[in-house]
């Protein structure tokens, strides 16, 4: 049974949040006394790492706190680790481009991460909404950092679409309350598909769909990823995106359990158009950051296949298969952080703001390690074996076949084959031709890539991970 903790004892379960929050203020204070950006980054990294380690100790003791608005179980903790890892990944690379007032950037990063890990540990719609807003607000400011014309444009687009999507989410939540009479997300098959439920479903799909950048709610993402700093793009496309994905798992798979057929249909349609649109748009793109942004849209399409498989499995009343689908999505999220985050961080290898594919030509001659690592990351995005991307797609497609959605698996796989075109194009450019003068190799640019590539390779051969993650899925339904 899940323990229930009340009163002041509950505070001990928020130590990861406290570590980050207090450090955030400390960095702001240190900034007043002129601490350098390297110091700020180091403090940020240490506090994220401390929070990460503490979170690890909380596994396997599920507990309800604060009037059951918070639920700390393995499912949420797993995502907390992912978000903390996403934060750690961009801390040091951010030094390259964040020159002035770095304390503000790093404290923002910490505050945003607090919002993320709170989102991971709640199954109450109000708490989820508030933490989701905290993440959004933090990332609005991070996107606009430095206030250049490019970043301001990116941030404005992000802010306006974000504000609209937020209001749609609130509307959706109110319909949810109307239909179910509760803000708690728990699977109650008694709720049958009602009119209010369907309206709520559509509104929530639209609202969260903006954050996940699924077609047709994706256009802001292309411009924002392109316009913001490289490490911010990396953070937006990994951490911020996965928060939306995690919340969607909670909201749809758990909250709309009784309405699975509807979200199966909606997400299947969205997944097909999102994958296809993302991949085909990326084909003709020569701006590398936009190419990665479109590929990120396509990847969101793969991610929401989880909802198709899970929804279909619930529809045929097979909870085992539903759990496989969710676990496949969780594995994919883990791999996604490293492969997509790493790929965006690779933009730091170019000295230009608008990174063209040709800007990386001949990278192999300047830095073989960077070229090899980026190749591994791109191969992983394409889903080639011995990389984490293969593992993620492997379990995702396996989940689809297990619920006998063979036609959807075929569509996804053909899409995956199309994506090979543009990833391999980039790889070939790096290994051929003369080094372009825009390449700027620094240890801060290369080391994160090597780390990501190593992580992707390790994940690629660690098949046993699936059974571990499968054990975490139950937390979705407590």
């Amino acid at each position, binding site marked *: 049974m899940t323990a229930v903790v009340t009163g002041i004892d509950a505070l001990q379960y928020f130590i990861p949040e406290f570590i980050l929050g207090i450090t955030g203020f400390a960095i702001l204070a240190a900034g007043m006394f002129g601490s350098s950006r390297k110091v700020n980054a180091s403090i940020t990294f240490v506090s994220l790492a401390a929070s990460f380690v503490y979170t690890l100790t909380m596994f396997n003791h599920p507990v309800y706190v604060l009037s059951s608005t918070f639920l700390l179980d393995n499912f949420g903790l797993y995502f907390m680790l992912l978000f903390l890892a996403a934060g750690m990944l961009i801390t040091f690379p951010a030094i390259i481009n964040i020159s002035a007032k770095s304390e503000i950037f790093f404290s923002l990063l910490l505050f945003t991460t607090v919002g993320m890990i709170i989102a991971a540990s709640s199954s109450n719609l109000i708490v989820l909404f508030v933490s989701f807003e905290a993440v959004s607000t933090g990332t609005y400011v991070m996107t606009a950092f430095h206030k250049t014309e490019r970043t301001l444009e990116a941030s404005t687009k992000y802010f306006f679409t974000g504000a609209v999507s937020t209001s749609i989410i609130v509307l959706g939540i109110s319909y949810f309350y109307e239909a179910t009479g509760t803000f708690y997300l728990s699977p109650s098959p008694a709720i049958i598909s009602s009119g209010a439920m369907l309206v709520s479903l559509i509104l929530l799909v639209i609202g969260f769909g903006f954050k996940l950048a699924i077609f047709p709610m994706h256009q802001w993402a292309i411009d924002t990823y392109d316009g913001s700093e490289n490490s911010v793009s990396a953070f937006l496309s990994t951490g911020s995106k996965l928060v939306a994905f995690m919340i969607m798992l909670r909201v749809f798979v758990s909250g709309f359990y009784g309405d699975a057929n509807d979200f199966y249909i909606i997400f299947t349609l969205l997944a097909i158009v999102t994958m296809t649109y993302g991949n085909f748009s990326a084909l003709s793109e020569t701006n590398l950051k936009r190419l990665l942004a479109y590929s990120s849209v396509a990847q969101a399409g793969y991610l929401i296949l989880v909802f198709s498989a899970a929804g279909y499995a619930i529809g045929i009343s097979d909870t085992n298969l539903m759990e496989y689908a969710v676990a496949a999505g969780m594995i994919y999220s883990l791999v996604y952080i490293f492969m997509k985050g790493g790929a965006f961080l690779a933009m730091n290898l170019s000295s230009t703001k608008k990174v063209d594919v040709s800007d990386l030509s001949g990278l192999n001659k300047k830095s073989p390690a960077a070229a090899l690592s980026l190749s591994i990351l791109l191969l992983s995005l394409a889903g080639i074996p011995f990389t984490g991307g293969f593992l993620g797609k492997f379990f995702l497609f396996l989940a689809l076949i297990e619920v006998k959605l063979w036609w959807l698996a075929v569509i996804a796989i053909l899409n995956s084959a199309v994506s090979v075109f543009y990833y391999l194009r980039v790889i070939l450019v790096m290994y051929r031709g003369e080094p372009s003068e825009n390449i700027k190799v620094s240890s801060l640019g290369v080391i994160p890539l090597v780390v990501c590539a190593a992580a992707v390779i390790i994940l690629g051969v660690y098949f046993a991970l*699936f059974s571990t993650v499968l054990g975490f899925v139950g937390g979705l339904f407590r």
Partner: protein
Amino acid sequence: MLMMELYIALFLLSVVTFLSGKNAKVYSLAVSGAFLLIFLFYFSYRYWGLSAVHGTLQTIPISPAYGFNFSLQSSGLSAVLVVIATFVIFAAIFVSSGNYSQVFYGLIMLTMSGLIGLLLSANLLFFYIFWEVVLVPVYFLIGLYGNRRSDTVSLKFFVYTHIGSVLMLLSFFSLYTYYFYETNGSFSMSISSLMNPALFETMPVFWRGFVFFGLFVAFLVKLPSFPLHSWLPDSYETAPYPVTIVLAGALSIMGGYGFFGILLPVVKVIPQGFLLALIVLGIISLIYFSLSAMSQLSMKRMMAYASAAAMGFVTISFGSGAIELQNSFSPSLYNLAFAGGMYQVLVHGLIMAMIFSSLYYVTKSTGKEMIGSLGGIFRGAPVISSFLLVGLLASLGLPGMAGFVAEFSVLAGIYGEIGMWILLIIFAMLITASYHIWMAQRTLFGPYNEVLGNIHDAGASSSAILTVMMLAIIFLGVFPHSVFELFTNYASGVVIP
């Protein structure tokens, strides 16, 4: 026994090639040569009695609860193919001019270890992984070292094969899922438990078809067969010669191994429509590729089509053999067809390696690749011309050479099933013979093309490797018994009537 240790050693030594610096060619030659000898002796010892069908199964558990294991097991078929693949890659490294960097040799060595892993894998998961992983080094070999249009051609190669292989992955998933239902909750990816007719019989008709469709597409792309072939002439032409040798000699084994190594145990349950389609595609491939070859202007491209046409025999033999089995013909008949198909996979690799090696030397000494710009080079370079001639004669199926044995046994084995349609195959063989001879006439003999100036003949080292190939081809043509018996035993041991 020892297989796993050998394989891991091979893989690690291949990776080391990337670090071998200036000595890359010598190093990779030494490693592949050593493994050629090791495999040759190991498998000769293992399969000398000709009775063994499978070797010992060795397993490294990865996630056993889900059936994911790295396991290796040789069979009479894969043993021979491993030896031939190692030999072809050894030859490719041997003939390469030595101006290449360690990356080039490293990629070739990786291709070799991936290919051998594929041939020995006893687990479908790793069969798939190796199938896919082999693509990556070859993609780079074509893309980085190819001549004109290498970027688009290498992409085309990759995407074609990738689509085939992901469809294959879906087939494996379906099998995996049905195995789970069938056994009420246990998982397996091992070839022996999934490639089992009893499992297929429990599956709904649609899913059975789905599984075979995915596998057929993957294998037909790789063979290649009409209409999935268009990557082949481009890739063979664009790739540098050592890579073409690897492609034509070693990688062409993959498709054939897919049919005879993976699908052979379940031929009983393949829908007849699929098998008929296989035969028809095989016949179309034979005729269409032979006609296309005839109209080519470049020797390399012509031989690429010749290579594709020869694989028509593989699909025809597999399809007809399987139908014969389903219609309860005599086992000796369909085993003959199957063994003939396997023999074709084997000798095709060898013959193509020889043809492309000698073409390489011809191109090196004359600087020309187009048929029209050559002529009468036998006068200036008699040794290399003779070797090319031997290769061409072997390829067209001259009795006494290895190709004849394969084609003859396929024809003998399938006649019972396809009857008068065999005339179409004979017709294709006539075209094959004619364009081979025609090409020899236009390039090797006839009046000397004075534009070429003075050409030099092959040196001692090139003669040595070509002599080895020639002897192997003649040996397999004159004493086919040694290997053929092994294949027949393998077929009769594996096929479940």
